[in-house]
């Protein structure tokens, strides 16, 4: 091992211990060892402020929203709509009517694919990339099957980057929708979404950005990006599961037909005609996940206290440190893009990813193994599965060292 690989980086968040202390789940032991939680790309842990907000909402303010005239319903509505405003401000959207609460990224994408996608016609094209998560492939596949439009996957390079020249060639006057990940879940690649949005807009196509993997790692400004839609999940940005957001430009959401029918999304109903509610309620049929939304608002409050430049440097330092260490063990790293978020996907020659996962788990280290819901990516790199360590702002060098010790154990067992 080189001296460089064993040197511990210095560009780390200074007071990592007090930051970690805010995440109660991190304080536990697993199989008798301190938990090293490195599965953040699958789901991140919640800080105390998020947990407190959830409990408070359930203990005191539990009621339905937008319905009752009683105090609890008013408080619930205030908390729910307050969360929407927090998210609007955080994303720099122009109005709360552009913030639709969903169950998560998957539902957000399905909403756009079903609603906007219903206007697709034979000969139209939906352009995605080879690195998309299944949730940014299948909704488009379904709507293409229904409408006769064609799904076009843009190729990626050996490093796991979108081949922009090839991408540009695939954008044409038939392209109606472009759907692309901001950050790849399987490779960690940060995609040049600004350039992609500009290319797409030149031909009048709409752009949906899958931001599931971006929100915990960078500040997202939808106005600056000029994307038409931005989809993300709460549980990958320190909030619980079951809540997510679709940001959409007002003029587009306005013109789109409803996605699901039910209560809340209507103004008046008769058996002859229903008048739909205003945005964003037109897309929020049924009683929403109120506590989830409140928790997501609290997660945004938490993120507002975070210096993202410091976090990016911290996660990058962890990634570099971990990358050098796994390479020194002879691993092949899948995804070596120039711009990467804290995702390290790799395979060991002698040990299948699934065995790696079990062995490091016995050391208290949580990683993800498998195809990461991105089977076309696995196929592109000729591997059935990878092991993936993914970092969040609360991870430290000990977490990485523990992973490496677990990998050494795996190599020992499979010597």
């Amino acid at each position: 091992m080189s001296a460089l690989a064993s040197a511990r980086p210095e560009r780390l968040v200074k007071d990592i211990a007090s930051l970690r202390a805010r995440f109660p789940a991190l304080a536990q032991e697993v199989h008798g060892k301190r938990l090293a939680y490195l599965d953040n790309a699958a789901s991140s842990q919640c800080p105390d402020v998020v947990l407190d907000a959830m409990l408070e909402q359930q203990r005191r303010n539990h009621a339905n929203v937008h319905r009752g005239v009683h105090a609890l319903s008013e408080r619930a509505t205030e908390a729910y709509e307050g969360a929407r405003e927090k998210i609007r401000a955080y994303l720099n959207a122009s109005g709360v009517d552009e913030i639709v609460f969903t169950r998560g990224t998957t539902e957000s994408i399905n909403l756009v694919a079903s609603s906007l996608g219903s206007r697709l016609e034979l000969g139209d094209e939906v352009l995605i990339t080879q690195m998309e998560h299944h949730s940014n492939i299948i909704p488009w596949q379904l709507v293409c099957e229904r409408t006769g439009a064609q799904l076009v996957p843009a190729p990626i390079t050996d490093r796991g980057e979108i081949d922009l020249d090839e991408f540009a060639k695939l954008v044409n006057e038939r392209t109606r929708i472009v759907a692309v990940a901001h950050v790849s879940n399987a490779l960690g690649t940060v995609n040049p979404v600004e350039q992609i949005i500009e290319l797409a807009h030149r031909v009048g196509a709409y752009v949906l950005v899958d931001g599931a993997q971006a929100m915990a790692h960078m500040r997202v400004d939808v106005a600056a990006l000029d994307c038409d839609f931005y989809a993300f999940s709460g549980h990958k940005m320190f909030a619980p599961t079951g809540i997510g957001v679709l940001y959409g430009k007002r003029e587009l959401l306005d013109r789109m037909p409803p996605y699901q029918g039910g209560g809340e999304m209507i103004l008046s109903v008769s058996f002859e005609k229903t008048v739909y509610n205003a945005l964003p309620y037109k897309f929020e049929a049924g009683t929403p996940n109120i506590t989830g939304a409140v928790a997501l608002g609290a997660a945004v409050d938490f993120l507002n206290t975070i210096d993202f430049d410091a976090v990016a440097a911290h996660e990058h330092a962890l990634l570099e440190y971990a990358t050098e260490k796994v390479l020194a063990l002879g691993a092949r790293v899948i995804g070596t893009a120039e711009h990467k978020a804290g995702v390290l996907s790799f395979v060991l020659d002698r040990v299948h990813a699934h065995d790696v996962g079990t062995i490091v788990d016995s050391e208290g280290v949580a990683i993800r193994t498998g195809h990461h819901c991105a089977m076309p990516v696995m196929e592109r790199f000729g591997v059935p599965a990878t092991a993936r360590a993914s970092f969040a702002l609360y991870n430290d060098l000990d977490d990485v060292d523990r992973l490496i010790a677990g990998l050494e154990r795996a190599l020992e067992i499979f010597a």
Partner: protein
Amino acid sequence: MNDLKDLYREVILDHNRAPRNFGELDGADRVVEGVNPLCGDRMTLYVKIDEGRIADIKFKGSGCAISVASSSLMTERVKGATVEESMTLFDKIHEMLAGNGAALDELDKLAALAGVREFPTRVKCASLAWHALKTALSGAEDRVSTE
């Protein structure tokens, strides 16, 4: 905690390193594809049946050590056995993996798979080959998934 040594016993590691009956089988009567979507295990099982006996059996594919070793051990054991014997064996393996206290001594070498019981997320890896075998012998379908 659960002991890794119990999961990765020498027999398992050996069959993973050097799987027996690995490859395609020309003239197979039954070809079944098995997938375990959780970890990306994928295997194809080839079976040649002659007068109610498994005359030859091979498998190919890629998977974790548990899945490869289980496939290898299985083919080694059922080659030459009758279809009926193999179906009975499937039930015993199923019982063992479900933790219902199957008679391990009857299973001989296959008892090495017993360690998987303590690792619930890995039971599907061990059972994939056996489900493929059952499907092949009952001849109903040509594809099996552990999901």
